[in-house]
């Protein structure tokens, strides 16, 4: 690898605590710690897991036209977002293909946009390229802002130990600003695991202190918590069918194809809207499905998908052994006629067809969705 990888401020901590470091999106990140990814997955589902997500990018938008500008760039109608509300959205190309998926926070003094590590530079450039005529200041604040995620059914209870804010009364997809262990923090009741929990943004210099403080609160409160690597982060996001850029979404995939129509509001005039409306009218040629193997094997990105007759007609974009649902399953794009749950498929694994069936997504229903 010729390009040098970036390291988060917790790099040395990860190495010292058994983190196995791998390149990911230009960063050197822990793929797992000593207990292994399956146990990390289970700990997060049963109690709490702590994630270093500082590789993710953060962009702040300020200025008179910030709202109007952002509403032009993303598929969600952000003018409907209350102060301190957080929402998922997509940034699309004119073609309807996806630049990135983002999480937007409506804060009193700015719009705060969290983007994928791999896409930060591209997203920033995309925003800058469309800023003409708007009074908006676009600032990449990633270096100064640290981000951690604390996720799991006991995450709120654990964090409550460290903050005077009343977390129990915080609805899902809202944020508040409060001190956590005396550190001014933006707490979002958000996350990407299908569990309750928070994502914390705070001054980067406090990364080490807050990380260790949260882990120390585990034994103090009797709440099981441990650091979680990227492998478990992937299986945790996969089971509730949350998309990941480079897998379920990308420049050649539209929100409609990826089952993300729910994140689009056609009353606004976002970039890509015309293409999506046209696609709606003409019908889709491919669609994202969930499948599970009915015989054993591990489906992985890039494997061909065939119909019952063995004709290849689709491709796996994500696949794994899903620890909580205890099945070998995946996501694939197939022509819409094969998208109905119950449709038999074959996944071609190392040139051998394995039987599979289309199943309803998500594989795991998020715990906070009643």
């Amino acid at each position, binding site marked *: 690898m010729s390009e040098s990888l970036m390291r988060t401020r917790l790099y040395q901590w990860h190495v010292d605590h058994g983190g196995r470091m791998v390149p990911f999106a230009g960063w050197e990140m822990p793929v797992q710690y000593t207990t292994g990814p399956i146990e990390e997955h289970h700990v997060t589902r049963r109690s709490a897991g702590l994630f270093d997500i500082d590789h993710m990018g953060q962009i702040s938008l300020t200025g008179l036209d910030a709202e109007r500008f952002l509403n032009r760039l993303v598929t969600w109608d952000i003018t409907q977002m209350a102060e301190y509300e957080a929402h998922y959205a997509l940034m699309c190309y004119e073609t309807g293909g996806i630049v990135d998926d983002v999480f937007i926070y409506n804060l009193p003094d700015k719009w705060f946009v969290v983007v994928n590590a791999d896409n930060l530079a591209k997203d920033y450039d995309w925003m800058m390229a469309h800023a003409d005529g708007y009074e908006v200041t676009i600032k990449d604040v990633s270096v100064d802002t640290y981000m951690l995620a604390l996720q799991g059914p006991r995450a709120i209870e654990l964090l409550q130990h460290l903050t005077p804010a009343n977390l129990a009364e915080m609805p899902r997809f809202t944020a508040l600003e409060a001190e956590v262990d005396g550190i001014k923090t933006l707490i979002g009741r958000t996350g990407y695991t299908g569990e309750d929990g928070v994502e914390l943004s705070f001054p980067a210099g406090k990364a080490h202190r807050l990380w260790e403080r949260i882990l120390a609160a585990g034994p103090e409160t009797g709440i099981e918590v441990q650091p979680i690597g990227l492998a478990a982060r992937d299986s945790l996001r996969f089971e509730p069918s949350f998309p990941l850029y480079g897998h379920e979404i990308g420049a050649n995939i539209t929100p409609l194809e990826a089952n993300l129509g729910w994140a689009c509001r056609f009353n606004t005039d976002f970039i890509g809207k015309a293409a999506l409306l046209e696609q709606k009218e003409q019908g889709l040629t491919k669609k994202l499905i969930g499948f599970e193997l009915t015989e054993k*094997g591990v489906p992985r990105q890039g494997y061909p998908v065939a119909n019952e007759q063995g004709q290849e007609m689709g491709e796996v974009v994500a696949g794994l052994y899903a620890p909580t649902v205890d099945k070998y399953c995946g996501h694939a794009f197939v022509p819409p006629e094969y998208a109905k749950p119950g449709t038999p498929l074959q996944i071609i694994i190392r040139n051998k067809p394995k039987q599979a069936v289309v199943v309803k997504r998500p594989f795991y229903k998020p715990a906070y969705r009643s």
Partner: protein
Amino acid sequence: MNVDPNAKYLESHEWSRKEGDLIVCGISDHAQESLSDVVFVELPEVGATFSKGDVFGVVESVKAASDLYMSMDGEIVEINEILEDEPELINSDPFGAAWLIKFKPSDPSQWDDLLTPDEYQEVAEAEE
């Protein structure tokens, strides 16, 4: 890292032990450690024949699929079917309960070509 002193090894981390006139094979403790959580093992059919160096199966961990190589020429006489439901045994007992295959070697002299425990230890340590 454990190295079974009664086994011989390939540089690709498969161990082989003599059991009567058969050879039993698995993957080493070092291999399971670097693979991390094993989630699936694909083993050959009983009766299949392979040459030394052939791929006889695949072990899949959370993040990767790795080929398994034959240590000698031979015919498969038994596979460890427990691993179909409990692939995680490879992590917990790589030299014991998680043996992969038993085969009848067609050229027993190939045993002498395998790495000794000491030689293998050096190979594995160099990777750590």
